[in-house]
C-alpha cells in the first residue's frame, strides 16, 4: 500500500520529545487534510443556512450538503432518500427508539441486543423499557467473541420480538460479525433490524442492500470526519411510516397557527439548522476512502493485525479479549501486574495514545468478569514500527512495576 501518513497532519504532532503514536482510532480517528479543507472551504467560501433563502450562498451550501448525502448514500449502497444526517451513532439509535419505538412498541414487546453492545445501543432501549414496559433480551457472547448459538436461537424464536438491534463489530472484542444470516432470519419473521456500524464501517465495505437491514447507524468522527456528524440509514418503506422526532424548521412543509405538515424523506428527521459543515466533511471523508479503495485499506489493516497478533504471542502476561478470527485491528488487553489505567497513562508519556476502561461497554466487561482493559485500536496509517514501539514500551513499563 502507498504511504498515506502525509495525508494526516496530526501524525506530525509530537508529545514532549516523542513522536505521536496514535492507537486510539476506535475512540475517534484522525482527520485527513481533505476533510479539514472541506470544513475550511465551507466557512471560507459558502457559510450559509441550507434549504432556505434564495441567495447564492444558500444555494451553494444546499448543493454541497445534498452532494454529501449522495456521497454517503453511495458509500453504503443506499438511496439518498434513505440517509438522515445525525450528530452520530448515539443520536441515530435514540431517533429510532423515540420515533419508531414510541409509535410501535406495546408493553411486553421485546427488543433483542447482544452482550457486546456499546452503551449507545443499550441505554435508549433501557429508557423505553422504563417508559413503555418493553423487555430486553441479550444474545450472549462467548469468550472468543462469537455469539452463543443457543442464546441466538432463543432470541430469534422469541414470540414478542419486535426489533433486533445489533452491533456489526465489538468496540472491545474487536470481533466483526457476519450478520447476513441473522438479519435474514429476523426479516423472515417480520422483525425489524438495526445495525450499529460505528466500528465496522471504518474497516469493512458496507452495503445496506446486501445486509438487508432496516436501520444502520454510524458516526462521522470514527470515519475520519468531524465530531457531531453522523448517519442514520432508514429503509425507505420504513422511513415513510415513522413520525418525526424533533420538531422545528426544516422538517415541515407547512406550519399554521395550530397545525403543521411534515416533510417527506430524510429531512423529516433533520429539524433545525443541521451540522452542515460536518455533513459536507463526512462526504469528503467517504470520497477520500473510496479514492484509496476500501479493499486496499482492509488488506493493509489485516497485515497490521497479523503483525500485532504475532508480537502479542510472545508476551505471556498479556491476555487478549476475544478471538483471533474476523477481527478489526482493535485489541483490548488485560495485563498481569499492571492496571490498564496506569498503562494508558504511562504509555502516553511515551507518546503512545491508547484507551483504558470499560470502553462504554460495561455489561460486556461484567460478563467477562473484568473491570477494565487497555485498548489499542489501529488504522491503515499505523505502522509495524509503531507496533514494535508499543510492545517495547509496555514491556519496559511492566518491568518497572515488578521491582
Amino acid at each position, binding site marked *: 500500500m502507498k504511504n498515506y501518513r502525509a495525508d494526516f497532519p496530526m501524525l506530525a504532532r509530537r508529545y514532549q520529545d516523542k513522536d505521536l503514536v496514535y492507537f486510539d482510532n476506535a475512540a475517534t480517528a484522525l482527520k485527513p487534510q481533505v476533510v479539514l479543507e472541506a470544513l475550511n472551504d465551507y466557512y471560507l467560501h459558502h457559510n450559509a443556512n441550507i434549504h432556505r433563502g434564495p441567495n447564492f450562498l444558500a444555494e451553494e451550501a444546499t448543493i454541497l450538503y445534498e452532494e454529501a448525502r449522495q456521497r454517503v448514500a453511495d458509500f453504503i449502497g443506499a438511496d439518498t432518500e434513505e440517509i438522515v444526517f445525525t450528530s452520530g451513532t448515539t443520536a441515530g439509535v435514540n431517533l429510532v427508539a423515540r420515533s419508531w419505538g414510541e409509535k410501535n412498541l406495546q408493553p411486553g414487546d421485546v427488543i433483542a441486543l447482544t452482550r457486546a453492545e456499546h452503551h449507545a445501543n443499550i441505554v435508549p432501549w433501557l429508557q423505553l423499557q422504563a417508559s413503555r414496559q418493553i423487555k430486553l433480551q441479550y444474545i450472549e457472547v462467548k469468550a472468543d467473541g462469537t455469539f452463543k448459538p443457543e442464546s441466538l436461537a432463543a432470541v430469534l424464536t422469541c414470540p414478542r420480538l419486535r426489533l433486533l438491534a445489533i452491533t456489526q463489530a465489538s468496540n472491545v472484542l474487536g470481533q466483526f460479525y457476519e450478520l447476513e444470516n441473522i438479519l435474514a432470519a429476523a426479516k423472515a419473521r417480520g422483525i425489524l433490524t438495526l445495525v450499529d456500524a460505528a466500528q465496522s464501517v471504518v474497516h469493512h465495505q458496507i452495503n445496506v442492500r446486501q445486509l438487508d437491514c432496516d436501520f444502520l447507524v454510524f458516526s462521522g468522527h470514527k470515519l475520519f470526519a468531524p465530531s457531531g456528524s453522523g448517519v442514520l440509514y432508514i429503509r425507505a418503506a420504513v422511513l415513510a411510516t415513522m413520525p418525526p422526532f424533533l420538531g422545528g424548521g426544516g422538517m415541515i412543509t407547512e406550519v399554521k397557527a395550530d397545525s403543521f405538515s411534515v416533510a417527506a424523506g430524510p429531512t423529516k428527521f433533520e429539524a433545525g439548522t443541521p451540522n452542515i459543515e460536518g455533513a459536507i466533511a463526512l462526504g469528503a471523508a467517504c470520497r477520500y476512502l473510496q479514492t484509496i479503495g476500501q479493499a486496499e485499506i482492509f488488506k493493509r489493516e489485516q497485515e497490521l493485525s497479523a503483525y500485532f497478533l504475532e508480537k502479542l504471542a510472545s508476551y505471556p502476561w498479556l491476555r487478549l479479549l476475544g478471538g483471533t478470527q474476523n477481527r478489526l485491528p482493535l485489541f483490548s488487553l488485560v495485563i498481569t501486574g499492571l*492496571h490498564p489505567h*496506569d498503562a494508558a*497513562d*504511562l504509555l502516553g508519556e511515551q507518546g503512545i495514545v491508547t484507551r*483504558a476502561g*470499560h470502553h462504554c461497554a460495561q455489561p460486556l466487561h461484567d460478563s467477562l468478569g473484568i*473491570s*477494565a482493559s487497555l485498548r489499542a485500536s489501529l488504522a491503515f496509517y499505523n505502522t509495524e514500527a509503531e507496533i514494535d514501539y508499543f510492545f517495547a514500551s509496555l514491556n519496559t513499563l511492566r518491568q518497572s*512495576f515488578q*521491582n
Partner: protein
Amino acid sequence: MDIYARNILDHYQRPRHRGVLAEADASFHELNRSCGDDFKVYLKLKDGLIEAISFEGQGCAISTAATSILSEFFLGKAPAEILKMDLEALRSLLGIEISFRRQKCALIGLRALQGAVASLAPSA
C-alpha cells in the same frame, strides 16, 4: 505524574490495612466505573477518634496507593479531619504531582472515607 515515586509504588505493591474491618462503625463503597476503580473502606472509632481503618477492592497504582497512604495518615485523628481534606492537601500528602487526568484516581479513597464519615451518626 510520577507513579514511580518510591512511596507510591511501595503502597501499591504492599497496601497497608487491606481487608474487612470487623465491627466497623462505618463503611462506604466508592466506584469509578469508567476507570475500573472500586474500593470499600471501613472505619472504627474510639473516644471520638479513628482507631482503625481498612479498605478492600481494586484499582490502579494511584488509587490504591492513595487509599493506603490515607489509611495510615488518619489513624488517631478526628473524623472531621477526613471531611476537611481537599485535593491540595492530598497532593502534598502523596508528595507527587497529580495530573488532571488522574485526579479521580487520586481522590477515590478520600471520597470513600468522606462517605463513611458522613454516614456516621452525628453524635459519633
